[in-house]
Protein backbone atom coordinates (compact mmCIF):
# COMPACT_ATOMS: atom_id res chain seq x y z
CA UNK A 1 0.00 0.00 0.00
CA UNK A 2 2.82 2.34 0.87
CA UNK A 3 4.18 1.92 -2.64
CA UNK A 4 0.81 2.66 -4.20
CA UNK A 5 0.54 5.82 -2.14
CA UNK A 6 3.98 6.89 -3.24
CA UNK A 7 2.98 6.39 -6.85
CA UNK A 8 -0.18 8.43 -6.31
CA UNK A 9 1.88 11.22 -4.80
CA UNK A 10 4.16 11.09 -7.80
CA UNK A 11 1.20 11.42 -10.16
CA UNK A 12 0.10 14.57 -8.35
CA UNK A 13 3.34 16.24 -9.31
CA UNK A 14 3.36 14.83 -12.84
CA UNK A 15 4.64 17.43 -15.26
CA UNK A 16 1.56 16.92 -17.42
CA UNK A 17 -0.61 18.24 -14.61
CA UNK A 18 -0.67 21.99 -14.27
CA UNK A 19 -2.46 24.23 -11.82
CA UNK A 20 -5.16 26.20 -13.63
CA UNK A 21 -7.18 28.93 -11.96
CA UNK A 22 -10.23 30.43 -13.60
CA UNK A 23 -11.11 33.86 -12.26
CA UNK A 24 -14.75 34.88 -12.58
CA UNK A 25 -15.26 38.60 -12.17
CA UNK A 26 -18.47 39.29 -14.04
CA UNK A 27 -22.19 38.82 -13.35
CA UNK A 28 -23.70 35.63 -14.86
CA UNK A 29 -25.90 37.45 -17.37
CA UNK A 30 -25.36 40.66 -19.31
CA UNK A 31 -22.19 39.37 -20.96
CA UNK A 32 -21.22 35.90 -22.10
CA UNK A 33 -18.02 35.66 -20.05
CA UNK A 34 -19.39 33.58 -17.17
CA UNK A 35 -20.89 30.94 -19.45
CA UNK A 36 -17.82 30.61 -21.65
CA UNK A 37 -15.47 30.48 -18.63
CA UNK A 38 -17.56 27.59 -17.35
CA UNK A 39 -17.05 25.77 -20.66
CA UNK A 40 -13.27 26.19 -20.26
CA UNK A 41 -13.43 24.95 -16.66
CA UNK A 42 -15.27 21.78 -17.68
CA UNK A 43 -12.81 20.98 -20.48
CA UNK A 44 -9.84 21.59 -18.19
CA UNK A 45 -11.35 19.15 -15.70
CA UNK A 46 -11.76 16.60 -18.49
CA UNK A 47 -7.99 16.92 -19.10
CA UNK A 48 -7.38 15.89 -15.47
CA UNK A 49 -5.67 19.14 -14.61
CA UNK A 50 -5.53 20.71 -11.14
CA UNK A 51 -8.40 23.20 -11.44
CA UNK A 52 -9.36 26.04 -9.11
CA UNK A 53 -12.25 28.41 -9.73
CA UNK A 54 -12.41 31.81 -8.05
CA UNK A 55 -15.39 34.13 -7.83
CA UNK A 56 -14.86 37.81 -7.13
CA UNK A 57 -16.42 41.18 -7.86
CA UNK A 58 -19.86 40.59 -9.48
CA UNK A 59 -18.63 37.07 -10.34
CA UNK A 60 -19.92 35.96 -6.93
CA UNK A 61 -23.46 36.27 -8.35
CA UNK A 62 -22.71 33.43 -10.79
CA UNK A 63 -23.22 30.84 -8.06
CA UNK A 64 -26.05 32.52 -6.18
CA UNK A 65 -28.98 30.25 -5.37
CA UNK A 66 -32.45 30.91 -6.76
CA UNK A 67 -31.59 32.44 -10.13
CA UNK A 68 -34.69 33.08 -12.25
CA UNK A 69 -33.74 34.07 -15.80
CA UNK A 70 -37.13 33.81 -17.52
CA UNK A 71 -37.60 37.54 -17.83
CA UNK A 72 -34.26 38.02 -19.63
CA UNK A 73 -34.86 34.97 -21.86
CA UNK A 74 -31.49 33.44 -20.97
CA UNK A 75 -30.78 29.87 -19.95
CA UNK A 76 -30.13 29.57 -16.21
CA UNK A 77 -26.81 27.75 -16.25
CA UNK A 78 -26.16 27.94 -12.50
CA UNK A 79 -27.03 24.21 -12.01
CA UNK A 80 -23.94 23.39 -14.12
CA UNK A 81 -21.67 24.57 -11.27
CA UNK A 82 -23.03 21.67 -9.25
CA UNK A 83 -21.71 19.28 -11.94
CA UNK A 84 -18.11 20.44 -11.35
CA UNK A 85 -17.77 17.98 -8.48
CA UNK A 86 -18.25 15.15 -11.01
CA UNK A 87 -15.08 16.38 -12.77
CA UNK A 88 -13.21 16.45 -9.41
CA UNK A 89 -13.29 20.24 -9.51
CA UNK A 90 -13.80 21.06 -5.86
CA UNK A 91 -11.47 24.00 -5.28
CA UNK A 92 -14.01 26.78 -5.44
CA UNK A 93 -13.06 30.08 -3.84
CA UNK A 94 -15.14 33.15 -3.11
CA UNK A 95 -13.42 36.39 -2.22
CA UNK A 96 -14.73 37.52 1.15
CA UNK A 97 -14.66 41.25 0.39
CA UNK A 98 -16.72 40.83 -2.80
CA UNK A 99 -19.20 38.51 -1.09
CA UNK A 100 -19.73 40.79 1.90
CA UNK A 101 -20.00 43.95 -0.21
CA UNK A 102 -22.94 42.31 -1.99
CA UNK A 103 -24.69 41.16 1.18
CA UNK A 104 -24.06 37.48 0.45
CA UNK A 105 -23.06 34.62 2.76
CA UNK A 106 -21.64 31.12 2.05
CA UNK A 107 -25.11 29.56 2.42
CA UNK A 108 -26.36 31.67 -0.52
CA UNK A 109 -24.33 29.66 -3.03
CA UNK A 110 -25.38 26.61 -5.09
CA UNK A 111 -22.05 24.88 -4.38
CA UNK A 112 -19.83 24.57 -1.30
CA UNK A 113 -17.11 27.22 -1.47
CA UNK A 114 -14.11 28.27 0.52
CA UNK A 115 -14.32 31.93 1.47
CA UNK A 116 -10.92 33.62 1.34
CA UNK A 117 -9.70 37.19 1.74
CA UNK A 118 -8.34 39.13 -1.24
CA UNK A 119 -4.83 38.67 0.21
CA UNK A 120 -5.32 34.89 0.52
CA UNK A 121 -6.65 34.75 -3.03
CA UNK A 122 -3.55 36.60 -4.22
CA UNK A 123 -1.41 33.91 -2.56
CA UNK A 124 -3.45 31.20 -4.29
CA UNK A 125 -3.01 32.96 -7.64
CA UNK A 126 0.74 33.09 -7.09
CA UNK A 127 0.77 29.29 -6.79
CA UNK A 128 -0.89 28.71 -10.20
CA UNK A 129 0.75 27.79 -13.51
CA UNK A 130 -2.07 29.20 -15.64
CA UNK A 131 -4.60 31.91 -14.81
CA UNK A 132 -7.51 32.64 -17.12
CA UNK A 133 -10.02 35.30 -16.22
CA UNK A 134 -13.39 36.26 -17.61
Amino acid at each position, binding site marked *: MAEAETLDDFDETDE*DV*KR*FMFVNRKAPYGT*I*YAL*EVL*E*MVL*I*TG*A*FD*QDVSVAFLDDGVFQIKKGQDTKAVNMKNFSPTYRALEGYDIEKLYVERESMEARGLAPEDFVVPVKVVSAAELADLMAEQ*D*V*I*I*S*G
Partner: protein
Amino acid sequence: MKLGVLVNEGPFTHQASDSAYHFVKAALDKGHEVSRVFFYYDGVNNGNKLSAPQSDDRNLVKLWGKMAEEHDLDLVVCVAAALRRGVSDENLAPGFRISGLGQLIEAAMESERLVVFGD
Protein backbone atom coordinates in the same frame (compact mmCIF):
# COMPACT_ATOMS: atom_id res chain seq x y z
CA MET B 1 10.66 30.44 -24.20
CA LYS B 2 7.71 28.38 -25.38
CA LEU B 3 4.56 30.48 -25.29
CA GLY B 4 0.87 29.86 -25.74
CA VAL B 5 -1.41 32.81 -26.46
CA LEU B 6 -5.13 33.25 -25.77
CA VAL B 7 -7.08 36.04 -27.48
CA ASN B 8 -10.41 36.80 -25.83
CA GLU B 9 -11.76 39.85 -27.64
CA GLY B 10 -12.76 40.73 -31.19
CA PRO B 11 -10.52 42.76 -33.49
CA PHE B 12 -12.67 45.89 -33.67
CA THR B 13 -14.27 46.70 -30.30
CA HIS B 14 -11.21 46.05 -28.20
CA GLN B 15 -7.44 46.46 -28.42
CA ALA B 16 -6.69 42.93 -27.11
CA SER B 17 -6.28 41.38 -30.58
CA ASP B 18 -3.87 44.11 -31.72
CA SER B 19 -1.84 43.73 -28.52
CA ALA B 20 -1.77 39.96 -28.98
CA TYR B 21 -0.68 40.32 -32.61
CA HIS B 22 2.17 42.70 -31.73
CA PHE B 23 3.19 40.53 -28.78
CA VAL B 24 3.37 37.39 -30.93
CA LYS B 25 5.28 39.26 -33.63
CA ALA B 26 7.81 40.58 -31.09
CA ALA B 27 8.15 37.16 -29.43
CA LEU B 28 8.84 35.45 -32.77
CA ASP B 29 11.30 38.19 -33.78
CA LYS B 30 13.19 37.60 -30.52
CA GLY B 31 13.41 33.88 -31.28
CA HIS B 32 10.76 32.62 -28.88
CA GLU B 33 8.49 29.79 -29.86
CA VAL B 34 4.73 30.37 -30.03
CA SER B 35 3.14 26.95 -29.96
CA ARG B 36 -0.39 28.15 -30.63
CA VAL B 37 -2.64 31.19 -30.66
CA PHE B 38 -6.12 30.26 -29.47
CA PHE B 39 -9.13 32.50 -30.14
CA TYR B 40 -12.06 32.44 -27.73
CA TYR B 41 -15.13 34.56 -26.94
CA ASP B 42 -15.39 37.36 -29.57
CA GLY B 43 -11.74 36.63 -30.36
CA VAL B 44 -13.04 34.13 -32.91
CA ASN B 45 -13.95 37.13 -35.10
CA ASN B 46 -10.23 37.43 -35.85
CA GLY B 47 -10.77 34.43 -38.12
CA ASN B 48 -13.77 35.75 -40.07
CA LYS B 49 -12.67 36.40 -43.65
CA LEU B 50 -15.85 38.36 -44.34
CA SER B 51 -14.51 41.18 -42.16
CA ALA B 52 -14.05 44.21 -44.38
CA PRO B 53 -12.48 47.09 -42.48
CA GLN B 54 -12.03 50.41 -44.28
CA SER B 55 -8.98 50.57 -46.51
CA ASP B 56 -7.09 53.00 -44.26
CA ASP B 57 -7.56 50.71 -41.24
CA ARG B 58 -5.33 47.78 -40.31
CA ASN B 59 -6.79 44.40 -41.25
CA LEU B 60 -5.96 42.03 -38.41
CA VAL B 61 -7.64 39.04 -40.05
CA LYS B 62 -5.19 39.31 -42.96
CA LEU B 63 -2.23 40.20 -40.71
CA TRP B 64 -2.75 37.04 -38.64
CA GLY B 65 -3.02 34.97 -41.82
CA LYS B 66 0.20 36.43 -43.18
CA MET B 67 2.00 35.79 -39.90
CA ALA B 68 0.71 32.20 -39.84
CA GLU B 69 2.07 31.65 -43.34
CA GLU B 70 5.47 33.19 -42.63
CA HIS B 71 6.06 31.52 -39.27
CA ASP B 72 4.02 28.32 -39.61
CA LEU B 73 1.96 29.62 -36.68
CA ASP B 74 -0.97 27.53 -35.40
CA LEU B 75 -4.06 29.78 -35.22
CA VAL B 76 -6.99 27.95 -33.66
CA VAL B 77 -10.54 29.24 -33.37
CA CYS B 78 -12.75 27.62 -30.71
CA VAL B 79 -15.52 25.71 -32.46
CA ALA B 80 -18.30 26.35 -29.92
CA ALA B 81 -17.50 30.05 -29.59
CA ALA B 82 -17.12 30.37 -33.39
CA LEU B 83 -20.35 28.68 -34.46
CA ARG B 84 -22.29 30.78 -31.96
CA ARG B 85 -20.90 33.89 -33.67
CA GLY B 86 -21.31 32.76 -37.27
CA VAL B 87 -17.70 31.78 -37.94
CA SER B 88 -17.53 28.40 -39.66
CA ASP B 89 -15.47 26.58 -42.30
CA GLU B 90 -17.43 28.55 -44.92
CA ASN B 91 -16.02 31.91 -43.88
CA LEU B 92 -12.87 30.94 -41.99
CA ALA B 93 -9.94 33.11 -43.00
CA PRO B 94 -6.76 31.54 -44.49
CA GLY B 95 -4.21 30.55 -41.86
CA PHE B 96 -6.83 29.64 -39.22
CA ARG B 97 -8.32 26.32 -38.28
CA ILE B 98 -11.38 25.48 -36.18
CA SER B 99 -11.03 23.06 -33.29
CA GLY B 100 -12.14 22.37 -29.73
CA LEU B 101 -11.32 24.02 -26.41
CA GLY B 102 -9.05 21.07 -25.68
CA GLN B 103 -6.52 22.78 -27.97
CA LEU B 104 -6.35 25.68 -25.51
CA ILE B 105 -5.78 23.41 -22.52
CA GLU B 106 -3.16 21.48 -24.49
CA ALA B 107 -1.36 24.72 -25.39
CA ALA B 108 -1.41 25.80 -21.74
CA MET B 109 -0.04 22.41 -20.66
CA GLU B 110 2.75 22.38 -23.25
CA SER B 111 3.87 26.00 -22.95
CA GLU B 112 6.00 27.59 -20.29
CA ARG B 113 3.57 30.51 -20.20
CA LEU B 114 0.04 31.07 -21.41
CA VAL B 115 -0.33 34.77 -22.16
CA VAL B 116 -3.94 35.98 -22.12
CA PHE B 117 -5.19 39.07 -23.97
CA GLY B 118 -8.56 40.51 -23.00
CA ASP B 119 -10.28 42.05 -19.99
